[in-house]
């Protein structure tokens, strides 16, 4: 058993040399592989749920699929107050599904793609572009620029800062929560491993040597802490991210 604690870093499986100056080499990391697994899971689930659809006398599976769609519709419609943002529904739903599945996939031992800042940054940038384009669409480009000088011109730097803080805070909030879950899970496993090694090392002879290499105490407790750090935190962060997305875009459309 190693005595020092190491966080579970994202592995790089292949490096493809591209020679592009700023982007650098294309690295196929654990993040990307697991992201694709997540996408396959979500799409497979969608296809499974929407098989054999009927108008009447529906199956439980179809009822569940309809419930999911209605939930997505209601989530966006209730938070934007109307049908104006119906185009956002698939986007928000995809974001939520990807986020939840990515967060929870750590339960089966894979490394969450959301424990990589690049993932959240990508999402946050997309959302930021959507917010900005909505603002420009609502107020015109001049109106958008003028919006930075409200309520007084002196506020302009702060307004720009707060505008930029939106995607940064969204990305970092989500990333930080998931990463902390990963770190704490790692810590708990490491500590329990050490504890069981110390405990079973007390048994003399070959039996004690053998047992002390197995982190027996690691069974049980992580499942309990996982309820919060994986399940609750994972679902909560996905929800918060989507909620903020919808709210920001709805607000952007209202600013006059």
């Amino acid at each position, binding site marked *: 058993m190693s005595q020092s604690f190491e966080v579970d870093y994202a592995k790089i499986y292949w490096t493809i040399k591209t020679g592009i100056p700023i982007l650098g080499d294309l690295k196929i990391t654990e993040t990307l592989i697991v992201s694709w697994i997540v996408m396959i899971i*979500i*799409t497979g689930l969608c296809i499974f749920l929407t098989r054999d659809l009927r108008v009447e006398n529906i199956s439980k599976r179809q009822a569940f699929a309809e419930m999911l769609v209605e939930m997505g519709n209601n989530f966006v419609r209730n938070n934007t107050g109307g049908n104006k943002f119906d185009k956002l529904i698939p986007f928000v739903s995809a974001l939520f599904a990807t986020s939840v599945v990515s967060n929870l996939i750590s339960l089966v031992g894979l490394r969450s793609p959301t424990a990589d800042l690049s993932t959240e940054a990508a999402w946050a940038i997309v959302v930021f572009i959507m917010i900005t384009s909505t603002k420009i669409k609502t107020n015109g480009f001049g109106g958008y620029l003028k919006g930075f000088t409200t309520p007084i011109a002196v506020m302009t730097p702060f307004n720009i800062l707060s505008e930029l803080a939106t995607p940064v805070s969204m990305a970092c909030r989500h990333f930080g929560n998931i990463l902390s879950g990963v770190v704490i899970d790692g810590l708990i496993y490491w500590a329990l491993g050490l504890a069981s090694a110390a405990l079973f090392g007390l048994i003399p002879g070959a039996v004690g040597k053998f047992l002390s290499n197995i982190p027996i105490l690691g069974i049980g407790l992580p499942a309990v802490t996982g309820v919060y750090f994986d399940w609750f935190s994972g679902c909560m962060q996905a929800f918060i991210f989507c909620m903020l997305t919808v709210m920001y875009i709805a607000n952007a459309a209202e600013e006059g």
Partner: protein
Amino acid sequence: MNYMALMAMTASAETQDLVTLVPWTFIIQIINLFIQVFLIKKFLFKPINDILDKRRNLADKEIKEAREAKTEADSLKEQYESSLTNAHAEAAQIVSDAQKEAQNKADTLVRDAQEEAAGIKARAAADIEQEKKKAINEAKDEISSLAMDIAGKVVEKEINEADHKKLIEDFINKVGA
């Protein structure tokens, strides 16, 4: 010993920093997100929304049909009610017409009977009168011839037949009056 070998193997795999922004991962994740949006739209939202729309249309159609049926039933009811009222009025009309006709017929019958009776009575009276006249005339003739005979026998005197007749008739008229 085994464990150490495993550690060495995993350590040999390259890892990235814990908090870092990798441009390629960033770009690929954006693309992944949009692919996911497309997939979720195609495989979940489109079919489910289609089926929901279909069901909504079906429900709307049924409500519409029910409403139409109700309107039709209402109009039929109204029609029946009005025709029933008409039938009542017609029946009343027929009864009153029949009564009137019967009354008229009865009146006519009575009047005819009365007229006939009056006619019979009048004819009878006329017959009686005529018979009476005839009898009187016959009696007059009889009397005048008798009187002439008697007078001829009594007076024995030849009298002009015409004067004689006149004289006798005057007499009879005076007697008859």
